[in-house]
């Protein structure tokens, strides 16, 4: 009896695995599969999320369509990587001069519990005025991160506080919403501005 039950589970298990394999094949290689994208973010036009910017305006992926976009994930309780990246971005925007006005630049929090609209407003105020701070409900932040193929995780600290591990790359999208490239955290700074110019140039190509 007991043996039979185990055998039954075994058969069901094999069936389930076969079904998963088939579904996996169908989605990845078969007729049901999307274009292979790997870990690249999807186009902004394929994303769906609702957030609030640091001035209280409702924003979403459509807010970013029509101009090239530079986006970065972080949180305001971050002592090192986030202020460093935001000050790097501020420097790139200074280098771009008037061209920077043609771009969207968004800093999206992965810590909405502490990063309210007011907190984001105060924080982004210390950096280049072109940088917008976006926050929103946890489930909407999760949707943004999913679209960007970005990850974040809450890490408790001994003191009872917590910190966040998160994707530290800066994402660049063309005006059409298509993902162009990323600027990795440890990439030499001189590579960044040419990459941003490439995203800006794609806008021009799209316009002609």
């Amino acid at each position, binding site marked *: 009896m007991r043996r039979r039950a185990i055998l039954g589970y075994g058969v069901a298990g094999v069936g389930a695995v076969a079904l998963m394999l088939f579904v996996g094949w169908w989605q990845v290689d078969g007729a049901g599969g999307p274009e292979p994208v790997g*870990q690249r973010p999807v186009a902004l036009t394929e994303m769906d999320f609702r957030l609030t910017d640091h001035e209280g305006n409702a924003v979403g992926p459509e807010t970013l369509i029509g101009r090239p976009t530079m986006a970065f994930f972080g949180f*305001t*309780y971050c*002592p*090192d*990587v986030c*202020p*460093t990246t*935001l*000050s*790097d971005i*501020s*420097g790139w925007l200074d280098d771009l001069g008037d061209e920077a006005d043609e771009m969207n630049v968004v800093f999206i929090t992965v810590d909405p519990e502490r990063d309210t609209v007011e907190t984001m407003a*105060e*924080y982004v105020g*210390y*950096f280049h005025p072109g940088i917008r701070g976006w926050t929103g409900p946890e489930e909407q932040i999760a949707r943004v991160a999913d679209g960007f193929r970005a*990850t974040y995780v809450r*890490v408790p*600290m001994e*003191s009872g*506080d917590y*910190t966040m*591990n*998160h*994707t*530290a*790359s800066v994402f660049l999208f063309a005006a059409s919403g298509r993902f162009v490239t*990323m600027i*990795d*955290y*440890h990439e030499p700074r001189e590579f960044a501005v040419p990459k941003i110019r490439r995203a800006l140039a794609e806008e021009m190509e799209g316009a002609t």
Partner: protein
Amino acid sequence: MKEKILTGALAALLTFGGLSTPVAADSQEILVDDVWARATIGVSRPAAVYFTLRNTGGDAVKLIGFETTIAKRAEAHRLKIDANGISTMEPAGEILLRPGNDLVFEPGGLHIMLMGLQEPLVEGDSIQLDLLFDDGGRMPVNVRVRGIAARGPRN
């Protein structure tokens, strides 16, 4: 501005009345430069302190701890970015200073994290941080607080 810790040598001189040449502990051969931190918004966020250490002596010295009156805890942390571009911070533990070498604490790498701030770090102010070495040496350093958007000790 270079600061060399001479207090130990000075104390030894006073003790021995200058009659004998004091034997300098290894940590007295450490120079510190470019000490800075970013200002904080309030006290609930942690702060990070950066500097460059140079071991001018002939022996390796270990940095084993940090103390400051402005925060409950001060720890060396190292930022890591994995192959997927995800940033994590981990305690750096004891840090070895090899003779003749520089060790740079800078954004995106090593930093001293100040947790449980007693008061905010205000741009233009200075705070004191003591570096503790394995030979018993204690080096007080003056940390200049720069703006939140500062990129380094000078820019």
